[in-house]
């Protein structure tokens, strides 16, 4: 029976591939492709119109691209060690990767979301989630560096996450895997009815972006897949798609696909916030890391938090309702007016659209179809605004152009479908290459989208680029959506596995992007604020080298009196105050990575010399015409030697 189902799916997929090929054949003529080239061509010296932040998936990092060119500008290390800059290797950044499980140097980064004010992008920060060891990170959009990471307790598979409310009041993190809360030793097959799904509301301080886990709603043990905020009239609500409402604990691909409908959970977070403010909720012991990087001390500090407020949703009547949604919905997207909640049943051909107004009316009229663990289930017909009969298969994610249209990705039929919000009619469809996951329109998850381009991020690459062995980067396509019909413009490889992206106009960020860190604001504990301040100090077997760099020398560059068994801290301060003049540092036998030090910054690399000798170090960033001369030596003597500690430059 199962087999029959799958082969039908495959056949359907095949048929659509053929249909797609025909479409593509028709539209490919010379004149069109030359105009497409012009649309993505950013001439030398000119700049792109939009920034795009693509998640790196299993790279653990966030990548920055330009649109329409598809050029990658930067990889921002967030959850993964990054030897390119020394992130997660330098003493200052190691605390950023601390968790209640110890140092976790990797994660699976999924969903970037840019901060908003009044539902519009404000370009202060981008929030991202770590899926594996649940974490939320905040990346500054003036330094383009990770400033803060907070671990999410009672969560596992932090997937319906890092989406923000329309004034960035909260960044929301929902669990994909339900787990025992609190964690305990119990049989796996007692999952049903016992596991919980935590939805976490993390506040964001408006002045500096500092995050604090305010409360967790302990939901029934479903899988909370994706989420989006209400906006405009639905501000104050948050919507989470669910699957595995069957509460299966094994072979989920079958066992969790049995119910015809799962739910979108509508959460009135303002109501719960008030409940908590009035003393509601239960304080539960927990352990989770909160890591903050300070821009002036250039240092991250990790603190362990011990408590979290949990809320039993049945104790706050009227705060949560379930909207039945067919076929294991993945995407759960809200249109710019906040009226429609789009559920993409990933095993379905159709897209289900719920109405916020109808939802309120159904709540008012108590149009319930039973309940699940005390949470009312609204009648499907009562909340349904419409169904998009797409003709595609496997809808995943929808964004909006701000002109009344929606664009939905179809994973199985490998296409982007454009449809009208209101009439639910399909306007256009274009193939993707291949098996598109998510898509992104700059501002497409806000009240004010910039509907000029859509980027489709694909899961399968196959023959799109020159082959590079079995493992390839994922492909992305950019389409012009300014006209009635979408036009495929360009195809580019991405880094890691982008699951999701956020974009904004270049002008929103460009003027705020920092060029240097000011040396006179450097408050690093081990900063060397001028070459005369450079020195070497010994405390037992720890040696601290206060070293300055400027084109093109280290001060000091000759150091003697180091012994085997010492732990040597190179605290490097880059004295430059000129844009784009980093200096690097590496030393032979270093068991970490090099460090790349930006102008005005201090970074520390630890070296534990194991062999007697005279060992060179050098600058790893080509900093000037005399970069090759930027080097020095450390003399390492036997442990019992009497060589005095000494240092010099130019002697």
């Amino acid at each position, binding site marked *: 029976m199962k087999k029959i189902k799958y082969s039908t799916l495959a056949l359907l997929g095949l048929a659509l591939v053929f249909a797609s090929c025909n479409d593509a054949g028709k539209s490919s003529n010379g004149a069109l492709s030359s105009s497409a080239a012009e649309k993505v061509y950013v001439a030398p010296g000119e700049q792109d119109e939009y920034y795009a932040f693509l998640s790196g998936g299993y790279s653990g990092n966030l990548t920055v691209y330009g649109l329409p060119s598809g050029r990658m500008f930067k990889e921002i290390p967030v959850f993964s060690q990054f030897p390119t800059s020394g992130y997660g290797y330098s003493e200052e950044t190691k605390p950023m990767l601390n968790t209640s499980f110890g140092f976790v140097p990797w994660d699976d980064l999924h969903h970037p979301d840019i901060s908003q004010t009044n539902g519009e992008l404000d370009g202060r920060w981008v929030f991202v989630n770590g899926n594996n060891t649940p974490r939320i990170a905040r990346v500054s959009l003036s330094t383009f560096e990770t400033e803060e990471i907070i671990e999410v307790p009672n969560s596992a598979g932090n997937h319906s996450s890092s989406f923000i409310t329309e004034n960035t009041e909260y960044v929301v993190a929902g669990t994909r895997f339900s787990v025992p809360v609190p964690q305990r030793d119990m049989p796996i097959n007692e999952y049903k009815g016992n596991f919980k799904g935590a939805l976490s509301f993390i506040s964001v301080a408006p002045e500096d972006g500092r995050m604090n886990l305010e409360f967790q709603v302990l939901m029934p043990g479903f899988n909370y897949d994706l989420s989006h905020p209400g906006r405009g009239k639905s501000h104050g609500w948050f919507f989470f798609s669910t699957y595995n409402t069957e509460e299966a604990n094994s072979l989920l691909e079958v066992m969790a696909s049995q119910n015809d409908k799962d739910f979108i959970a509508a959460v009135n977070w303002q109501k719960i916030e008030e409940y908590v403010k009035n003393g509601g909720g239960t304080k539960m012991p927990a352990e989770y890391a909160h890591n903050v990087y300070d821009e002036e001390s250039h240092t991250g500090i990790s603190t362990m938090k011990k408590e979290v407020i949990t809320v039993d949703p049945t104790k706050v009547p009227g705060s949560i309702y379930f909207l039945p949604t067919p076929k294991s919905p993945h995407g759960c997207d809200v249109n710019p007016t906040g009226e429609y909640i789009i559920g993409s049943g990933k095993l379905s051909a159709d897209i289900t659209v719920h109405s916020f107004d109808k939802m309120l009316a159904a709540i008012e009229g108590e149009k319930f179809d039973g309940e699940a663990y005390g949470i009312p289930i609204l009648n499907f017909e009562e909340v349904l605004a419409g169904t998009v009969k797409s003709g595609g298969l496997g809808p995943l994610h929808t964004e909006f152009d701000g002109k009344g249209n929606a664009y939905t990705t179809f994973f199985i039929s490998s296409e982007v479908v454009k449809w009208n919000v209101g009439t639910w009619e399909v306007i256009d469809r274009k193939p993707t290459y291949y098996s598109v996951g998510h898509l992104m329109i700059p501002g497409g998850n806000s009240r004010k989208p910039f509907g000029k381009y859509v980027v489709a991020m694909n899961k399968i690459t196959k023959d799109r680029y020159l082959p590079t062995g079995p493992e390839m980067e994922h492909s992305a396509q950019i389409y012009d959506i300014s006209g009635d019909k979408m036009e495929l413009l360009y195809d580019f490889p991405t880094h890691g596995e982008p699951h999701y992206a956020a974009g904004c106009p270049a002008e929103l960020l460009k003027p705020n992007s920092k060029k240097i860190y000011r040396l006179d604001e450097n408050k690093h504990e081990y900063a060397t604020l001028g070459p005369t301040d450079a020195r070497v100090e010994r405390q037992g077997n720890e040696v601290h080298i206060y070293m300055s760099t400027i084109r093109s020398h280290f001060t000091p560059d000759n150091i003697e009196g180091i012994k085997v068994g010492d732990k040597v801290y190179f605290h490097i301060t880059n004295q430059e*105050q*000129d844009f784009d003049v980093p200096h690097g540092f590496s030393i032979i036998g270093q068991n970490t990575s090099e460090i790349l030090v930006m102008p005005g910054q201090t970074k520390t690399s630890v070296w534990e010399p194991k062999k007697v000798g005279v060992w060179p170090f050098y600058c790893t960033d080509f900093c*000037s015409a*005399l970069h090759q001369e930027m080097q020095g030596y450390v003399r390492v003597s036997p442990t019992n030697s009497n060589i005095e500690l000494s240092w010099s430059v130019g002697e």
Partner: protein
Amino acid sequence: MKKASILMILGPLFLLGLYFLPLWNIMLGAPQYPEPLGMNIHIDGIRGVSEFDIQNIDGLNHYIGMRTLPKDEEMWEFSAFPLIVGGMIALGVLTGLLGFFRKVSYKWFFGWLLLMSLLGVLGMYDFNAWMVDYGTNLDPNAIMKLTNPDGSPMSYKPPLLGHVKMLNFDVTSMPAAGAWLMFVGMTLILIAGYFGWKASKTEPVLKATEA
């Protein structure tokens, strides 16, 4: 003569601009400096056009063995010039007032202008001499010792006025806002002198009483 004297009072006041606006500007652009480095020469010291330009110019100059740019206290000019300019403003306004009350003739106006021009030329001469010294008196242990095609050591003297290509840098030297205001002031005084001279011809009666 009234009109001329008012201009003579106003003219020197334009020199007040020199206390907060630069006299001269030198910009250094290069392929890797799409936003050029620049220095503004004020009567009391050298300032960067952008905050860290001086530090960055010094950083580049160390390759070719140039000394660092002088701090305010390292050149007598930067303490003398504000006094000289102040003196000239006071002298000019006083001359104008005396003209207004018919105590001095228009010839004094031209006299002030002549003195100001002389000081200006001396200032330029001094500035140029400093640039020659700064651009040619190089550290013998310089990292890069470059020579002209004829074998003589390359000089890095910035131009007094106009543009030169110096290694990878395009160097442009121009009077800045403070100097332009000064030129406006001096032009007013030239006009003041002219009006005074015209008045002395058409108003002979007045001229008699003036004497």
